């Protein structure tokens, strides 16, 4: 008798060095079912899938707790090869295709048809010669099954992006024992039209009894194509529903978190004059993996603006683009004056400071002392911490040391002293050093990216408090880019949401959670108009 479920995962727990990322998660899929797995970045989706595939990252970090049943039988999957043997396939977020190969070679990758010869009989299968005509005809059959009119001898690199995703599906389907296919954000790179075509194709395949786990951020697609939905939040299973029984709003709410639970450290309804500190007009940034298209944003003097969005959707590109770190197009007006973003030094001189999300790469000189790291920007930009003796500029060691000590006290940087190497500090303390350097510049506009990524709670609070302090005491305008929505909601006056490379809306921190979720997944139609502060232009 066929078992009821093709895959069951029971009580899955996983922790990375004492930090739980999955807590008692259950998952069940029937044959031919499309199950949507949704959750924010870092909710544990990838970890769950890594467990399913027996990726080495799981086993090298101490394995996991829980039970996996495939086809009704308990299985031990300890490598991706085991998963493949069971009949679990994966369509990756980035294409796992070789552009230089023809389609048939990609479909048959590592499962090539072979012609027999003498050497092969002696030395093993590896020396069989590829049977290209057989590979092509079998590939053609699979492509036809998917309703694609493609010549298997076409070079894959010449295909449009939309079709490449089909090739990946074709590869999985060509595996004769395939029973379950995991789709990891398969539509992220597709246009709406292409995504629709692709998902119809998935639906068609699922009718033949093949199950799918569908990971996505596009909730509309979930609603339209999935049979059931599993929602993860912070490593916990917060919902397991059939698609009909749940609304998009509810999914979104469950993803983000039910209750708005944050302490505001800024007055709730601050009024600002209509002086704009910064204006972006049709601003596009070509940052690899974070492309931003035609953003229009106005930031008022003295406010704290948050920029939220999912990873890879372009939120990080705004600050990096303004600082001229990646090629960009469009206009930037600083206090009404157009600036040339490629001239980073001039931008700094104009009073803009930037704390990069790439702390260890762009942000810090890891082998230098705390003191050097704190003063380097001001020294370079404003010639601060310099002393003139006989017309020659010398480094003013004393002033730098005093300032650094002051900063160490103010931020509570845990270190042995100003001369300690920054590379030896913990992540949180490194972040504090970055902040201290920005403060040393006394900026009028501060761009902060991911200020709290990967640091402990205490340091988080300190850094957020310091941002608010700068804003209220010195009147610094601040743009905070962060993946931590709750934090943005605790300090920002407005929050801009970036999705699919575009600024899709600006919300007040007090808007309902589900609105944030909807905007992040690219749904701009929030039902009720007027409440949200739409893009002004």
């Amino acid at each position, binding site marked *: 008798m066929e078992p009821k479920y093709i895959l069951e995962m029971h009580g899955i727990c996983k922790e990375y060095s004492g930090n739980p990322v999955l807590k008692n998660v259950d998952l069940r899929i029937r044959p031919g079912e499309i199950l949507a797995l949704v959750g924010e970045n870092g909710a544990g989706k990838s970890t769950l899938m890594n467990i399913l595939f027996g990726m080495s990252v799981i086993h090298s970090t101490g394995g996991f707790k829980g039970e996996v049943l495939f086809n009704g039988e308990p299985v031990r999957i300890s490598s991706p090869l085991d998963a493949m043997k069971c009949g679990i396939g994966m369509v990756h977020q980035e294409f796992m295709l070789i552009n230089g190969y023809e389609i048939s070679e990609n479909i048959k*990758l590592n499962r090539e048809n072979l012609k027999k010869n003498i050497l092969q009989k002696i030395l093993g299968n590896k*020396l*069989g010669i*590829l049977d290209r005509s057989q590979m092509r005809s079998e590939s053609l059959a699979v492509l036809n099954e998917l309703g694609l009119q493609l010549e298997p001898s076409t070079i894959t690199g010449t295909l449009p992006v939309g079709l490449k995703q089909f090739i990946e599906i074709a590869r999985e389907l060509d595996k004769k024992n395939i029973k379950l296919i995991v789709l990891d954000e398969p539509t992220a790179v597709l246009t709406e039209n292409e995504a629709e075509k692709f998902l119809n194709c998935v639906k068609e395949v699922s009718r033949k009894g093949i199950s799918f786990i569908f990971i996505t951020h596009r909730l509309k697609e979930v609603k339209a194509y999935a049979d059931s939905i599993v929602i993860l939040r912070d490593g916990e299973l917060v919902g397991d529903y059939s698609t009909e029984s749940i609304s998009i709003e509810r999914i979104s709410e469950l993803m983000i978190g039910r209750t708005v639970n944050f302490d505001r450290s800024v007055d709730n309804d601050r009024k600002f004059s209509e002086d704009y500190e910064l204006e972006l007009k049709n601003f596009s940034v070509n940052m690899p993996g974070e492309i931003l298209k035609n953003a229009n944003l106005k930031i008022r003097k003295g406010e704290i603006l948050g920029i939220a969005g999912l990873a890879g959707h372009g939120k990080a590109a705004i600050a990096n683009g303004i600082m001229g770190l990646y090629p960009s197009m469009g206009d930037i007006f600083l206090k009404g004056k157009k600036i040339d973003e490629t001239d980073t030094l001039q931008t700094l001189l104009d009073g803009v400071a930037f704390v990069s999300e790439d702390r260890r790469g762009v942000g810090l000189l890891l082998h230098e002392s705390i003191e050097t790291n704190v003063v380097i920007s001001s020294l370079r930009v404003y010639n601060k911490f310099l002393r003139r003796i006989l017309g020659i500029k010398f480094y003013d060691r004393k002033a730098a040391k005093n300032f650094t000590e002051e900063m160490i006290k103010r931020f509570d940087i845990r270190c042995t002293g100003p001369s300690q190497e920054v590379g030896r500090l913990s992540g949180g303390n490194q972040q504090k050093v970055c902040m201290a350097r920005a403060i040393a510049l006394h900026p009028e506009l501060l761009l902060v990216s991911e200020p709290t990524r990967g640091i402990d709670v205490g340091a988080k609070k300190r850094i957020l408090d310091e941002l608010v302090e700068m804003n209220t005491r010195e009147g610094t305008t601040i743009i905070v880019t962060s993946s931590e929505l709750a934090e943005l909601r605790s300090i920002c006056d407005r929050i801009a949401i970036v999705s699919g490379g575009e600024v899709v809306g600006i919300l007040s921190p007090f808007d309902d959670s589900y609105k944030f979720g909807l905007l992040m997944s690219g749904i701009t139609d929030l039902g009720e108009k007027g409440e949200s502060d739409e893009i002004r232009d």
Partner: protein
Amino acid sequence: MKADKFLAVLKSNAVTIFFIILCIFSTAFSGQSATFIVQELVSRLCRNSVLILSLLMPVLCGMGLNFSIVLGAAAGQIGLILITNWGIGGFTGMLICILIATIISVLFGIFSGFLFNKTVGQEMITGIIVGYFAKGFFDLIFLILAGTKIFPIGNPELLLAGGVGLKNTIVFGEGVRYVFDDVFKLSLINCLLYGVYITLAITIVVILIHKIKGNKWKDALIKSKTMIIVFSCFLICFLLVFLIPSLFTAGLRTDVPLFTVLLIAVVCLLNEFLCKTKLGQDIRTCGLDMQVASASGIKVGQTRIIATVISTIIAAWGQIIFLQNMGLVNTYTSHEQVGTYAVAALLVGGASIHKATIKQVFVGAVLFHLLFFTMPLAGFNLFNDSQIGEYFRVFVSYGVIAISLALHAWENLPKVKAKKKIKSDVVAN
């Protein structure tokens, strides 16, 4: 547009064209007769081709130019020294030698393959260092241990006067020296003539097969393009040699060791065969994208080790062919430069660290070795100083690598820019 295309062709072959020009100059200034140059070139080509061929697999596997073929060369040398010590010669001796060298080079290949897997992305520099290490190890065994109780050497003629350590130069016995070369020799002009006959015959057969399979004449001709090109090459070479008097004399006086040529052909075919197998496909996949390869279940590490082992084995065979042609071995230095010279030759042929073909091996071998022995002569003629001639030789071997790598980098520059432009266009739309 046509001018653009022409420029593009020039640019993509910049390295080779640069060296062709250099070769023409240095040959012209060397002041040697055509006979000397042709003789020297043919013997160097036969001597070195297999060593250069050994570099192909690692390039295909994405590991760049395998400088660690020095290990393979050392293995080949060990085989030759052992059979000289045992006093075995002739074909039995060579077979034993090849067997020993193959076994040792498998071990060496696995060793350097493991190292390369630990240093992904830095295989070339690792290869160079492994080469130095191998030299030290080789010296330890043959300079310090050879002749002692640990490693007894039966033939006292091989040892230094003190009884420990091998002599700097070991002259091979009759059964080893020229053992492959002397099997069957034919003058160059006859070789070319037979070459024309044979390739013509093969070409006609291939065309007919395509015709019988039901292609039109035109398609049949197009499908047998490669054979027609090979045939034309032979024909043109033959006509040149036949019609130009100085080359005609050279062609008559130059003997081609046909058996060695056959061995080279076998290695070429082996390489082609491997490329067409599943193993070859795995190696190519690893070379194009290691991540995709491992995601599709290919054992990337293992495949890379196999590619290194193949390369090392072929290098060992190459060194045996090289040394039997030389007739003697400089015990401590013969294998030292093998990697550098082979890599330089391959690069001159137009290969890059991402792509290398058999055609490039032979083009490179001709150009590099032509330059290698005419440069010092030209330098001597121009400046009347043999020191400068020697300087040119060193310049050629190391400078070639630097120049061709730089030229390749230059070739790739505009492509990057074009890509950037396209991307920004995409963003703009």
